[in-house]
């Protein structure tokens, strides 16, 4: 079979246009989030008094940083799976959540005396956070990686890592509705570590399954 014959086979293989990649990814994201929410409500659930806690700027910051991470990582993900698509401003947008955390941490350090910094940072449920965020992120990461195989990432490990950031951000957003540790120092340390863990897993799996 030479190239011309191969082309004949490829040209005949035009199934009715598959749904767009962006739509598949959005659907996967939705399915993953629904599973994560089901897991969340079936197990730890929202914290008591969430409705009043939401007025605390520290609590708002938790939702805001994780949400901005989700948006930036999502935008970047759609670029990394398309050959030749530049990253645009999305890679820089990833700095936004980091910046928000840094600002929050500075305010927090000024609001509390030095003796309390350690306690604020360690919080009460650090190990719990390290377990829950990756668990809540897992269905989202799985759904994303599954559809990303339709993509064509030039760097599969990177695409997997960005999917991990997105899933980790979404998992952390959900966990924030339960998390009783409100200090930005806690957010800076334990949320970041949890999300980094999901990112690492995403990168390792992506490197294996997103090759094409």
């Amino acid at each position, binding site marked *: *079979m*030479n190239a011309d014959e191969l082309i004949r086979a*490829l040209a005949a*293989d035009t199934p009715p246009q598959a749904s767009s990649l962006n739509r598949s990814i959005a659907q996967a994201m939705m399915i993953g989030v629904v599973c994560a929410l089901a897991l969340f409500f079936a197990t730890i659930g929202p914290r008591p008094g969430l409705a009043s806690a939401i007025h605390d700027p520290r609590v708002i910051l938790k939702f805001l940083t994780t949400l901005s991470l989700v948006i930036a990582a999502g935008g970047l993900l759609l670029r990394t799976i398309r*050959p*030749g698509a530049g990253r645009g401003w999305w890679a820089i947008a990833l700095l936004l959540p980091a910046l928000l955390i840094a600002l929050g941490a500075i305010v927090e350090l000024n609001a509390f005396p030095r003796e309390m910094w350690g306690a604020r940072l360690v919080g009460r449920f650090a190990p719990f956070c390290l377990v829950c965020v990756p668990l809540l992120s897992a269905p989202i990461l799985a759904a994303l990686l599954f559809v990303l195989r339709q993509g064509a990432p030039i760097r599969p490990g990177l695409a997997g890592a960005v999917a991990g950031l997105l899933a980790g951000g979404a998992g952390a957003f959900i966990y924030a509705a339960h998390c009783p540790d409100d200090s930005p120092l806690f957010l800076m340390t334990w949320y970041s570590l949890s999300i980094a863990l999901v990112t690492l897993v995403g990168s390792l799996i992506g490197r294996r399954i997103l090759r094409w």
Partner: protein
Amino acid sequence: MELALLMRAANSGDGAAYEGFLKALLPVLRGFARRAVARVGANIDAEDIVQETLIAIHLKRQTWIDTQPIEPWIRAIVRHKAIDALRRRGHRVHLPVEDFENLLATEPLTPDDAHRDIERHLPHLPERQRDVIRSIAIEGRSIGDTARQFAMTEGAVRVALHRGVASLAAILRGET
């Protein structure tokens, strides 16, 4: 060279435009693959890379957004597949991006060694996929004629063809 126009028509279901697109692409891919092979001084048939790239472009065609220019998309795929193919055969590869700048302005090359056979890979495919691919690609039958030949439905022929192309891609990648 209106590759984007052809591809857009192909995406809206025009099979002839799609074939035209792939045919217009072929000399370009050949020119590039030969340059890449020559650059690393590899004893590799450039036509292998050409065919691998063709299949990749086919299987990943939905990663092109049809409002965007098509050249950067093609260039990135060609470069990726060439690097991948050379690396798999044990070559350390650095292909400068400049090699790809004029990719789509290359003069068509005569296909002197174009009769490289990937038919040798066909025996590794499941029987049904092999029969269908051989019938359509080599014997030049249509989907309908192939369906009659093997007493299959057209839908089943399409499925076998699609799976066959995907299997071929996996074999060329060295995954099976």
